């Protein structure tokens, strides 16, 4: 802690206790006398909100666990029973479910705060990394918890995520089966997910203790990003920070209460009110809102890169998006801590925030959906009306020159007067060629809003021509460029990584920062920001 202890035991008992277990001294030094920079703004209050959220999740979770039945036959009904029959269950279950969202809302604010004010820089690297560990544990806890109500989304989200692990080369399947305890998500999976969902929050408590310890060792950062130098730069934690934290906690609880009491299901997915069915997949699987950006990154990779197939590539980037946070302290080369004095970095940061939100939007859309309107899909059709069709079987000498051989034969048929030739390969070296000669060649163009609509149109046209006994139709599809959600996600993902791996390392070396005040006191007098 900063400086020698100023704790003065007031009574006989506290004096007696202080020489045996100085716990009150620890509390006093950490949360009463502890000097905090005097210029902290409200972005610094979310640590307190997060502590409150963790307590709320643990308390409500322990209560839920008293009534919850971790078996695939009973889980869904037991959660419904909590909501309908268990005294106060209607209140406690939504607090836990909404609480998870509130927890993530607070943690994202907390993390963006750290990013903007450079709170990850020396001497706070370990503090930042411990925060990243907490975030990872939170994601794991929320994923495990989401599977417990055993609704359709629970089941299929668990299926999709565990299948991702199957993308890992060689050992993927073994890891997946190990995690599921079987060959599909089933009762063993639900049991262990419950056990781990109960365990992880307590691990989080442990890491939070380390996080706060590291905080008190390094001292709090502040909006100016300069270290406190004189006594006037700091104020005691109580009452200054305590009151501010309490105020924000109350405001936050109002929002929390708004959801719990007026729209407890607004943040959830209606499909999760359908009991899990391993034989029916919901048409559109989405994770909870707070994981959508990562889901978008996962799906952005729809191409193979060398030996890495698209599925593995997505998994690598998704985990990479979190991994990069761990090394951030060594990626940002700027000597100026707070972005308040880095006008260019500020703008890249703003774009970064927008990119993260846009990724979240993408994660909730169908990947092939167009982001902006596009021209219709078109196809040119050619066929021959009337005339006679002749069939011929061609055998190529080897598989290698089969295609060229078939094409040569088709060319021959054309020269012999065939208007149109259809090549239908029936084996590696054989094809049936159908040519129509005589008759009149016809052309038409059909169009559709998207590929499916186009295919439907082509099918309709073919059917009507089939009735007029036209043997076949040549189709030449012309797909317009469509700016899909996947494309958009690719651009956003590129920026996400560019921000950490390109912009922050390079910008720190080249930018000219505005004048950083030497002391906290000067930063306050120097004007607003």
């Amino acid at each position: 802690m900063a400086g020698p202890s100023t704790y003065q035991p007031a009574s006989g008992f506290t004096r007696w206790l202080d020489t045996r277990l100085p716990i009150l001294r620890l509390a006093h030094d950490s949360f009463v006398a502890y000097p905090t920079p005097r210029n902290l703004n409200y972005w610094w209050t979310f640590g307190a909100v997060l502590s409150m959220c963790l307590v709320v999740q643990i308390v409500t979770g322990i209560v839920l666990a008293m009534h919850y039945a971790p078996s695939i036959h009973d889980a869904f009904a037991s959660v419904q029973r909590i909501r309908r029959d268990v005294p106060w269950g209607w209140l406690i279950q939504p607090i836990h479910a909404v609480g998870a969202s509130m927890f993530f809302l607070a943690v994202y604010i907390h993390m963006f705060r750290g990013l903007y004010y450079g709170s990850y820089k020396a001497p706070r690297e370990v503090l930042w990394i411990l925060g990243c560990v907490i975030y990872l544990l939170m994601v794991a806890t929320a994923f495990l918890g989401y599977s417990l109500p055993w609704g359709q989304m629970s089941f299929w989200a668990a299926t999709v995520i565990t299948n991702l692990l199957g993308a890992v080369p060689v050992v993927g399947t073994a890891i997946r089966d190990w995690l599921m305890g079987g060959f599909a998500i089933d009762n063993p999976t639900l049991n262990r997910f419950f056990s781990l969902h109960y365990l992880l929050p307590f691990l989080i408590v442990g890491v939070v203790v380390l996080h706060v310890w590291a905080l008190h060792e390094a001292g709090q950062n502040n909006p100016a990003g300069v270290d406190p130098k004189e006594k006037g730069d700091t104020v005691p934690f109580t009452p200054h920070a305590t009151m501010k934290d309490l105020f924000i906690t109350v405001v936050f609880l109002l929002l929390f209460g708004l959801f719990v009491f007026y729209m407890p299901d607004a943040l959830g997915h209606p499909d999760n009110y359908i009991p899990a069915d391993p034989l029916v997949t919901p048409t559109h699987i989405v994770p909870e809102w707070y994981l959508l950006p990562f889901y978008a990154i996962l799906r952005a990779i729809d191409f193979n890169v060398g030996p890495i197939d698209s599925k593995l590539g997505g998994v690598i980037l998704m985990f990479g998006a979190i991994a990069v946070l761990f090394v951030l302290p060594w990626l940002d080369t700027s000597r100026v801590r707070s972005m308040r004095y880095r006008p260019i970095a500020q703008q890249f940061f703003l774009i970064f925030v927008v990119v993260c939100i846009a990724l979240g939007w993408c994660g909730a859309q169908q990947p092939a959906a167009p982001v902006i309107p596009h021209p219709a899909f078109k196809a040119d059709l050619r066929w021959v009306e009337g005339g006679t069709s002749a069939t011929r079987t061609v055998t190529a000498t080897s598989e290698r020159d089969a295609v060229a051989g078939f094409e040569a034969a088709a060319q021959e048929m054309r020269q012999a007067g065939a208007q149109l030739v259809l090549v239908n390969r029936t084996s590696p070296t054989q094809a049936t060629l159908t040519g129509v000669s005589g008759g009149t060649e016809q052309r038409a163009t059909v169009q559709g809003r998207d590929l499916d609509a186009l295919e439907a149109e082509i099918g309709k046209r073919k059917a009507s021509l089939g009735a007029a006994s036209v043997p076949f139709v040549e189709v030449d599809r012309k797909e317009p460029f469509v700016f899909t959600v996947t494309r958009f996600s690719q651009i956003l993902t590129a920026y996400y990584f560019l921000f950490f791996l390109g912009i922050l390392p390079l910008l720190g070396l080249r930018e000219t920062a505005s004048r950083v005040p030497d002391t906290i006191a000067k930063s306050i007098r120097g004007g607003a920001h």
Partner: protein
Amino acid sequence: MAETTANETAAPAASAGETRRDFIFIAAGAVGAVGAALTAWPFIDQMNPAADTRAMATTEVDLASLQAGQQIVITWQGKPVFVRHRTPAEIEAAQRDDYAALKDPATDASRLVQANGAAGKPAFLIVQAACTHLGCIPTFAAGDYKGWMCACHGSQYDTSGRIRRGPAPLNLALAPYTYLTDTSIRIG
């Protein structure tokens, strides 16, 4: 004389003491590490599929009541399996595309082979239902190829369960099955 003795005993004793302590330290450490690994293993391995889950649960299916153009979805080892009675048109489409440009090339006949290596019957296709992309269950007789269409991310399979379009990398996996009689099969 006395001095020499002292020197003789002191020097080797000191170095011997060092090496002995090092040896005990390394030996104890090694045994401890092996012990820790051996202790950890049961706690890790217990999460693997249990004997009853692993026991090749077999499922028997009666095909007699399955009409052409229909499929049933059954579970085998907790995994869904499609048993599809194909129409002549579907069989023809599957065989015709044997040499089309396929992402995961396979002939229709090779996808009907029974667990014991004997040829299957073209009418009945038995494949695992999980989409090879991320495991959703594709919709029956939908998509351009009228095989299956996965609503999750749009993968399309043909009437032989081969991947034709979309993000899935592989054909629908085969399920090991054998004919028990002309109209019944055992999966597993």
